[in-house]
């Protein structure tokens, strides 16, 4: 009985340690310093994703906007309401890079946003409408979902060109 109890205690404590301190598979989006809302900044005002995520059309990394990107629009008062002045003082307080984007993909994976945009894949095809709820959709991504489209099994109606399926196309 003593040994059984000891074994149980060991196993239990490892599980407990993993639960408390183990890294989640996909890092969750932290709310961040700024209460940014995608719904206010998207199609409703005719803003394309690339206006803020400047790399999403032509670069590998889509990038998170820097303060300068925000100020491109927000340096002018965007509305006549009383909120506008309060907003200006808030903007003065934020860092140059309010969002740090740690790459979620492992080192050996190559994902190039520009190639996909050039092939006609729209932002919502992969990131879904979830971005409107301020989540980037990471729970949708795994190698199988990439391969299914590359093999032509999904998105058939969009008629994408056949994409590379050999390992070295996307892995280093």
């Amino acid at each position, binding site marked *: *009985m*003593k040994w059984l*109890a*000891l074994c149980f*205690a*060991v196993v*239990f*404590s*490892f599980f*407990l*340690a*993993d639960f*408390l*301190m*183990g890294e989640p598979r996909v890092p969750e989006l932290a709310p961040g310093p700024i209460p940014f809302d995608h719904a206010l900044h998207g199609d409703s005002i005719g803003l394309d994703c690339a206006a803020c995520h400047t790399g999403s059309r*032509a670069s*590998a990394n889509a990038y998170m906007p820097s303060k300068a990107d925000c100020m491109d629009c927000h340096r002018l008062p965007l509305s006549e309401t009383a909120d506008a002045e309060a907003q200006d003082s808030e903007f003065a307080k934020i860092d140059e890079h309010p969002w740090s984007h740690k790459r979620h993909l*492992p*080192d*050996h994976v*190559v994902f*190039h946003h*520009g*190639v996909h*945009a*050039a*092939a006609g894949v729209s932002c919502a095809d992969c990131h879904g409408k979830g971005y409107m709820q301020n989540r980037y959709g990471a729970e949708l991504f795994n190698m199988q979902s990439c391969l299914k489209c590359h093999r032509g099994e999904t998105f058939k109606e969009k008629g994408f060109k056949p994409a590379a399926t*050999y*390992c*070295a*196309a996307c*892995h*280093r």
Partner: protein
Amino acid sequence: MGMDRREFIKSCSLVAVMGLLYGCRKSAVLGDIASQLSVPELKRFEDEVRLAMSQAKKTLDLVKVPTPCALKIPGASTLNRFGMAIDLDACDGCGKCILACNLENNVPLVPDEDAARGRFMHWVELRGNAPFMCAHCGNAPCERVCPTGAANHTPDGLSAMMYKRCTGSRFCGANCPVQARKFNFNDAQKLGLARQFNREVPLRDKGVMEKCSLCLHRLQNDRLAFKTKLSVAATPEDAEWRGRGVKTACAEACPHKAIVFGNWLDEKSPLVQQTKDRILYAPRELAALDPSVVFMRGSR
């Protein structure tokens, strides 16, 4: 029941504490202390290259081979087959290519006992006073025997190595007739023997094979950039990616331009142009395996 309740609770909590400490071994505080100790300086890499050169094999048994043409594997590209030619008349065995490759690909150092026995991780070695690396054989004996498919061939002629798929059987390394492959017997990062000079190339784990990749990362970046540009092709010929302008790290580093990288199937490639009137050679053991990396000497 030998234990009383008090002892039981004591041992449970002790084990729980040990578990918690184990669980946070990678946390900010404990992790930082570990990583500060671990980055080796450049000089150690340079010294190791010099040591390897001093122990290098002095002979290289070469036979004549025909100019490589399109790969004979299913799905092979008819436009691209990347390879290299090493000019034995120009090479003086200086070894700058070896250091350049090591820094470009984050090749780890090896522990002293291995270095003393001449067991290095370098992808390029000197043999017969010339640089020697994986020949990216069209009919590769290593790819045939990989149990997981980690060693495979790309349509454009590279013998690719997928580290995350490798389970460390070392069958590929055993089957290579010229021992071009290197195995990570050690956890280089943990031993403080690895350094990520180049962020474009991942560091390899313990237990995987590695070898010359013909600078796959440079080829990938070039291909991705090409496919992203608004391609209003001047001629139909320009509409496809041919890898023009890409050079491997070793080819770039050679002061005598003895290493020529290019595309065997592209008339405009420097590789095709510079090998046109030279005699091509390959190691005797590889001649029948359709190597993409050859040596050249003399003129036709």
